[in-house]
Every structure is written in structure tokens, then in C-alpha cells.
């Protein structure tokens, strides 16, 4: 059966981001209208029954997250939408907010109603200013049409949605770091527990949900939990956006069910490899997850199947690499990212990511020594599991996965004293040096 997109319907059509288009072509705000006739708890139950899992990376059940939001308290509750899309290889929320912003706005309103919040903050990364302008203009139209603000659709429910602009910090995508940043501080994670559901924004009960997650909510309310679960494999229901980048002919965002295999995503959706070169490895879920090899591509792209294959679906950012990619360079490129983005709160991550980068740069430059390989392994294992948030594990992953699958490339670099796989698309001069 052919898959019909539901999240990205009509996104290539002119004016698909407008309120008129949303209402007339996408049954816009019917989900909200229906939700407001239900009890908040019934919506939570429905989202639980749908099995919707967080689309930001962790895959945690959304209904459960909402249920944990403390209800029996005089404090206000908050919804934070995580639109700080920064995981390398991920660009799906970008499309949703730019071409279907009212789906997110409707999702925010329903989520607020379900958890008893009156205010939602959409935390958008500072680099998405052009997206923010569209989003804010459409929020204004939603207010004018009575879908936000006071006494929404005559139900007595009040809800405000605000966009909050970040200023360039990957770590702000971690839920407690996002809350810290929203409170006007450095984006550094908090010690958990307490989890945001108990003490989040301004020490009030808070739900933090990804953009794509919230975009699924109006569809679940409108079409029902059974419709949603039927779209994908067991426990991996619903539509999913896949971001495909790297050495493919048609990089882009593709909507599919999680029955779709990684091979279908790469060959059918993204048009196969550029110049038909052989595929060497893929990163299936954003830069923080282990590599998969060509013989694993028949794995369905679901949370559970990819995990069984030894990696994670994460944010569904597939980075596809051909045979010209040096795996030491790959690890170095990503560690440059992690050492730059480490928030600096936990020592193992702050210091470890820097030392990993330096070691990798030395090996890539042909100055590595045999003992450096054990050192890489040792430093990585002293980061994993020793930090407040998942960043530490993510930072060590590129090193551990390339060392596990391509150790021979590391050894060849050390043995021959040079990069054994320099590619034409890389810099002609060495780009690495000491810290900067």
C-alpha cells in the first residue's frame, strides 16, 4: 500500500504555510475543536494508546510524559516545544515549521489543554530566524482567528503560544538545558531528578516536546489512536520524517512509515548514491548514534529495529557516506563539533571531548602513535555514563563506533604516517591544529 504523507502534505505548494490553506486543505484546527470537547485526561489516554514516541531523539512515549506532569499543584504548568533542531544531519522540524506551521501551533494548543498549561514557549534555534518570522506571523493569524488567546472556540480554555529565540547552542536541545536557556541562563543541563514534569520551567511542572512530536498530536485526536498505530510497526506507529543527507542524489526530508527499510529510504526516496559509488556506512539517527554498515540496510527504519541492529533511530537524520570517506576524518569532524558544543558543566565531557579531538587530529595528520588508539578508547570510556546528560555518550560514540568497525583505518594512519583516504571534497590544506 502506498504511503500517503500526513505531516508534510502539500508542503511544496505555494502558500501551504498559511492559515487559509491549513483550514481549507488540511482540515486545520478540527483536531483542536474536537480536543476541546474532550476531558484533558482523555486526550492523554488517547495519545498513550497511540504509542506516539518522542521524535526528538530519545523515543520516549509522549502520553506517559504528559501523564507525569504534576497536576495537583497550585503552580502554573508550562509546555516547551523543542525547536532547537541542532543534531547534525537533522532538518525535519525546519520543514514543518516553515511549510506547515499551523500544525505545530494546533499541536501546542492541544498539548497545553491536555496537561493543563496556559502558556507554550516554542524554543527555536537562533539560526532559524527566517523560520521564526514565518512562525510568528502565523501565530498572530491564529490569535486573530480565535485558535489561540482567550476563550478558544468558546470553550473557556485560554492558551498563549510564544516563540523564544535561542542564540547558538547545541546543548539547548537537551530538555533541562532548554529550560535553563529559557530562564535566561547558560544552556546547561540540570541534575535529574527532579524531572521537568515535576519541576521544570520556573520550577513549575513542564512538558518538553519536539516539534514533530507535537505535530502528530492533532492527527491523533482527529483520526484516532488506531489509525495512528496502523501506520507503522508495533510500538513504532505513526508517520515519520526522515532527513537524508550526504552522498545521495536527492538529499531531503522524506515522510514514510517506519516499516520502510533504510535501503528503501536511500535508494528509492533519496535516489541512491551520487555517481553510483558504493556505500561505505551510514549514520541512521543524527551524529550521536553508532554507524551501520551496507549489510544492515534491510533493517526497517523504526526505533526498535534500528536499536536491534546496534544503533539508534535518534532524530532520524540519515547521513549517507560513500567509499571516499575516511573514518578517522569522520570521527575528527564530529569531535570538532562535540568539543565546540560541550556546555562545559561536566568535566569528563568538557575535557574528554577536547582531548579526543586533539588525538584524532594528530592521527589524521599522520603523527599518531600506536598507543594513541588505546588512549582514544580509554578517554571515550571515561566519558560514557559519567555526565549529567546524554551529550557525553554522544560525544564518545563517533570514536567508539569507528574504532569498532574500522580499526584498520586507524592503524593504517599510524603505520603509514598519513591519511590513507584523502578525498577531493576535503580541504586541500590541513584544517586541524591545536585548540581554537
Amino acid at each position, binding site marked *: 500500500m502506498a504511503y500517503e504523507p500526513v505531516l508534510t502534505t502539500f508542503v511544496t505548494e505555494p502558500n501551504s504555510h498559511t492559515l487559509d490553506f491549513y483550514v481549507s486543505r488540511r482540515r486545520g484546527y478540527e483536531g483542536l475543536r474536537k480536543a476541546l470537547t474532550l476531558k484533558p485526561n482523555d486526550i492523554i489516554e488517547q495519545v498513550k494508546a497511540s504509542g506516539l514516541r518522542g521524535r526528538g531523539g530519545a523515543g520516549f512515549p509522549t502520553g506517559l510524559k504528559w501523564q507525569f506532569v504534576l497536576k495537583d499543584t497550585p503552580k502554573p504548568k508550562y509546555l516547551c516545544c523543542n525547536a532547537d533542531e541542532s543534531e547534525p544531519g537533522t532538518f525535519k522540524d525546519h520543514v514543518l515549521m516553515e511549510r506547515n506551521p499551523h500544525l505545530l501551533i494546533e499541536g501546542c494548543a492541544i498539548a497545553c489543554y491536555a496537561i493543563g498549561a496556559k502558556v507554550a514557549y516554542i524554543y527555536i534555534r537562533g539560526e532559524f530566524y527566517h523560520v521564526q518570522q514565518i512562525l510568528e506571523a502565523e501565530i498572530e493569524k491564529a490569535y486573530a482567528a480565535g485558535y489561540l488567546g482567550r476563550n478558544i472556540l468558546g470553550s473557556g480554555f485560554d492558551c498563549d503560544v510564544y516563540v523564544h*529565540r535561542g542564540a547558538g547552542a547545541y546543548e539547548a536541545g537537551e530538555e533541562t538545558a532548554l529550560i535553563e536557556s529559557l530562564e535566561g541562563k547558560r544552556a546547561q543541563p540540570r541534575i535529574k531528578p527532579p524531572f521537568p514534569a515535576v519541576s521544570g520551567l520556573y520550577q513549575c511542572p513542564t512538558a518538553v516536546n519536539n516539534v514533530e512530536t507535537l505535530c502528530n498530536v492533532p492527527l491523533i485526536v482527529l483520526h484516532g489512536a488506531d489509525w495512528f498505530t496502523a501506520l507503522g510497526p508495533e510500538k513504532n506507529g505513526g508517520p515519520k520524517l526522515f532527513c537524508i543527507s550526504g552522498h545521495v542524489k536527492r*538529499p531531503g526530508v522524506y515522510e514514510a512509515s517506519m516499516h520502510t527499510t533504510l535501503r528503501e529510504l536511500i535508494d528509492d526516496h533519496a535516489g541512491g548514491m551520487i555517481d553510483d559509488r558504493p556505500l561505505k556506512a551510514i549514520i541512521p539517527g543524527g551524529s550521536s548514534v553508532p554507524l551501520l554498515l551496507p549489510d544492515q540496510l534491510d533493517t526497517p527504519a523504526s526505533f526498535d529495529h534500528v536499536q536491534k541492529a546496534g544503533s539508534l533511530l535518534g532524530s532520524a537524520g540519515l547521513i549517507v557516506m560513500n567509499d571516499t570517506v575516511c573514518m578517522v576524518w569522520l570521527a575528527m569532524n564530529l569531535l570538532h563539533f562535540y568539543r565546540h558544543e560541550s556546555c562545559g558543566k561536566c568535566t569528563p565531557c568538557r575535557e574528554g571531548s577536547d582531548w579526543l579531538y586533539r588525538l584524532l587530529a594528530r592521527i589524521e595528520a599522520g603523527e599518531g602513535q600506536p598507543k594513541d588508539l588505546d588512549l582514544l578508547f580509554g578517554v571515550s570510556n571515561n566519558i560514557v555514563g559519567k555526565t549529567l546528560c546524554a551529550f557525553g555518550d554522544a560525544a564518545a560514540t563517533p570514536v567508539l563506533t569507528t574504532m569498532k568497525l574500522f580499526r584498520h583505518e586507524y592503524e593504517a594512519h599510524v603505520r603509514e604516517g598519513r591519511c590513507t583516504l584523502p578525498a577531493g571534497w576535503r580541504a586541500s590544506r590541513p584544517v586541524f591544529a591545536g585548540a581554537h
Partner: protein
Amino acid sequence: MEYAPAAFHASTRALPEEGSPFAFTPENQAKFDANVARYPPEQRKSAILYALYLAQGQQGYLTRAAMRHVALQIGCTAAEVEDVVSYYTMFFTKPVGRYVLNVCRTLSCALVGAERVTEALGDALGIKPGETDPTGTFTLIEVECLGACDRAPVVMVNDGWQERLSPEQVSQFLEALRARGEAALSGCHLRREKQAVGSRQSAVGSGQPAVGGD
């Protein structure tokens, strides 16, 4: 009395420059007052990033005078403002060129030539990443993933975007920026709707690219 050799104090923490006296323009003051109302009255600090963007927009970069003004507006200390400024990458504490070229250097962009783009930009302008050209027109910065990996290599120019910039197009790109300013940028390709329709529109059913590449 010296209690440690001078080299012991190797910290490189440099205070941002003092700069000329700073206050929001009436227009920016109004914008700030409207923004701060989005947060609970006792949580004015939530508006700090917004206030810093306003200050940076007003004078190009953030000085100590500007940070003190922001602290006054928020009701916090100047140290707290500096704490925030020094954390986020999108705030500048030194003057930058009229166009800040933020070249994405992370994996997906690097796989299709971002390192070469940075080299070509640096060669054309005679500067290294992190520097501003002598005319004060361009600042070259390497940044981490911008979240548009399907349109790599991506360069963010101030708040605008240039997508799929190849090393060969660099000199033409700089000329266009000099001549036409930010209007010369490709923008986000999703906004060029006519192009986004077209070939992709005909695809239906399974395998339909939601937003595919060219």
C-alpha cells in the same frame, strides 16, 4: 607581594571593550518592553537573549556598556549578562564585518565540500576563519551544523541563508553580496515555491519526496 609567578596566572579571560555609552533606541525599548511581557513578571531574565539581540542589532556587537544596559533592563548583574554572552555563539564582543559569513563545517556539509568553500572564501578575502577583511565588509566564521544538511554546503550570512555554495561560485557570490547585499542570497530553498513545485509535484504515493533536493 607576589604570591605566585606571573605565568601562573595564565587565564586569557579578557573583558569586552567598554565602548561608548549605550541605551536602547526608543524603538528597541518598545520592542523589549513588549517581549518581556511574554514572561511572568518575576522572570524578566527570560528576555535576556532578546535584549542582547536588540543591543547587537543596534551597534553591531556587544560592549560592556551595552551589557550593563541590558542588566539594568533585566534587573540582574552585569556579570550575569556577560555569563550569558560568553556562552552563546551568536553574540559578538568584537566588531564584525557588514556581512558575517558563517560556513557550516559539520559532517553533512563537509561531505560535499564545505572545507573547500571555507578555503575559497578565505583565499578570496585574504583572511582566515575568525577574521574580518581589511575593508570591514566580511567576517569569515566556521560554524557547526546549521540544520539544512539537504542543501549543503550552507552559509548563513547575518540572518540570511545561501545554500549549495560550491568553491567555484565563491568569487561570484562575494561580488553579488557586495553589489546587492543580502538580496543576493538564495534564501531558504523552501521559500522559492515555484521551484519547489515542478518536478517533485508529479511524484505520488510511496517515495514521494516531501522536500527533496534539486
